[in-house]
């Protein structure tokens, strides 16, 4: 109970729970539709989803400032690639929140002249750029860690036997040589991800999240069921990183 109180006192935690519930409603709506449920039940579920979406927009009203502050902090990072990726990612997030605020104003009727579709597409574009940059950062971190792991392994074990077929008359076939390299890389990848849960969680979260703007922008339509499942998974992963701060990828 104590931990719930502490968890609930963070505004971000509340927003994540509501996000999880929202995408659960999306998934539930899709499942019920496939299962042929009553129309008013579907209507209730979609109304609940819309209510949560609008309330989340209300809760996020101040987040542009927070994203700009995060961008200011990211400028001082030492690693060049990280600095670039994170700063631009935070700036895109700030723009996403700004579009989101305008959407809220339009949906609640404060500024009725807002073209909801245009601004919605805009906000999803910024969200997509943010996720692409986050994934770039994840891949960069993964690459660094894999390099380090490969060098560590090379220094620990004696050098493996040289390929003896260099003087043979056999035509060079890349497949038998490429396969051990591929399996080695895969093994490295799995090891690195297994020993670095924050990176794994962040990668999974960004991969799940990216399907949402891809579907909404029409780049890769997947259907509301898949979007709901991805959104729910990424929200649950995000709640896990809030509950256990050591699981959050830093910086």
């Amino acid at each position, binding site marked *: 109970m*104590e931990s719930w109180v502490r968890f609930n006192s963070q*505004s971000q935690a509340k927003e994540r729970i509501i996000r999880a519930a929202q995408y659960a409603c999306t998934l539930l709506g899709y499942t019920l539709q496939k299962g042929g449920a009553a129309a008013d039940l579907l209507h209730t579920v979609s109304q609940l989803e819309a209510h949560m979406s609008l309330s989340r927009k209300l*809760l996020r009203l101040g987040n542009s400032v927070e994203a700009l502050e995060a961008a200011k902090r990211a400028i001082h990072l030492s690693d060049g690639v990280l600095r670039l990726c994170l700063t631009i990612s935070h700036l895109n997030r700030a723009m996403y929140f700004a579009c989101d605020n305008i959407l809220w104003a339009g949906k609640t009727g404060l500024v009725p002249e807002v073209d909801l579709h245009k601004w919605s597409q805009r906000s999803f574009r910024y969200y997509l750029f943010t996720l692409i940059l986050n994934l770039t950062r994840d891949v960069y971190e993964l690459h660094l860690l894999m390099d380090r792991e490969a060098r560590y392994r090379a220094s620990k074990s004696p050098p493996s036997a040289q390929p003896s077929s260099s003087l043979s008359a056999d035509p060079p076939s890349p497949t038998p040589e490429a396969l051990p390299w591929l399996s080695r890389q895969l093994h490295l990848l799995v090891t690195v991800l297994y020993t670095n849960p924050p990176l794994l969680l962040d990668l999974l979260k960004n991969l799940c999240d990216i399907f949402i703007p891809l579907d909404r922008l029409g780049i890769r339509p997947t259907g509301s069921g898949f979007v709901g499942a991805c959104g729910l998974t990424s929200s649950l992963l995000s709640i896990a990183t809030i509950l256990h701060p050591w699981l959050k990828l830093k910086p």
Partner: protein
Amino acid sequence: MDAVVQFTSQSQGRDRIFRATQYACALSVYLLRNNSERKDLVAKLKSLETNMSAGRKLFRLGNTINSIEAAKRTMQLSDRVLCLCLTAANANRALYFICDNVLWARNVGLIRDIDKERWSLNASRCYFLSLVTSLTRDVYEVIQLMAQKARDRHFRQKMELHLNESSEVAEAVIPQLDAFLFLLLESLRSHPAVALDVLKNVCDLFIPLDRLGIYQSNAGVVGFCGLLSSVIGIVTLAQPKLRLRP
């Protein structure tokens, strides 16, 4: 900027800002109600107020557990009166949140067949009781402060000075009342947390009093009182020194 970000990252901070906005809208709607040129502004403000209220009901869904935890903590206080008042206040607040959650479910359409008016009145009653017990606690704290001050020698000298000087300006009609008021004001001035809490609870009290029909004021008074108590809530959250503990 940093302080603003830190303030809004607390769930309570955001809720108080939304509450202040909600009651500011209510007050503005009341003030502009007869202004025919501003009809669309009034409609927008009403819509904003409804949205804030609906959003806040969603955000409050977990607060029952918070109140129960707070009640469990206050049950262990050593001072009997404080223990009783605070536990009763927290228990009533937990009941208020339960009613509030049921009302949210009704508004959203999850529960169809409940009497909205009855649950709304029950919520107001629980809120009213929690405010009454909070005010009882405030009165108890003020009495203790006044008793403590009266025993303080330094203060007694100050009181003598005040009573003697006022007799030169104008004779005090009821010198005991004058002394009592001086003691009260000095106690409140030296402990701003208690004064702010009293003011906040008194302002908050007008809201259920109006809703339950015990003391019918108008929407403007309710809006103003709600706004004032929200602003005091924001101030006490931003400055922890001004918050009354426990």
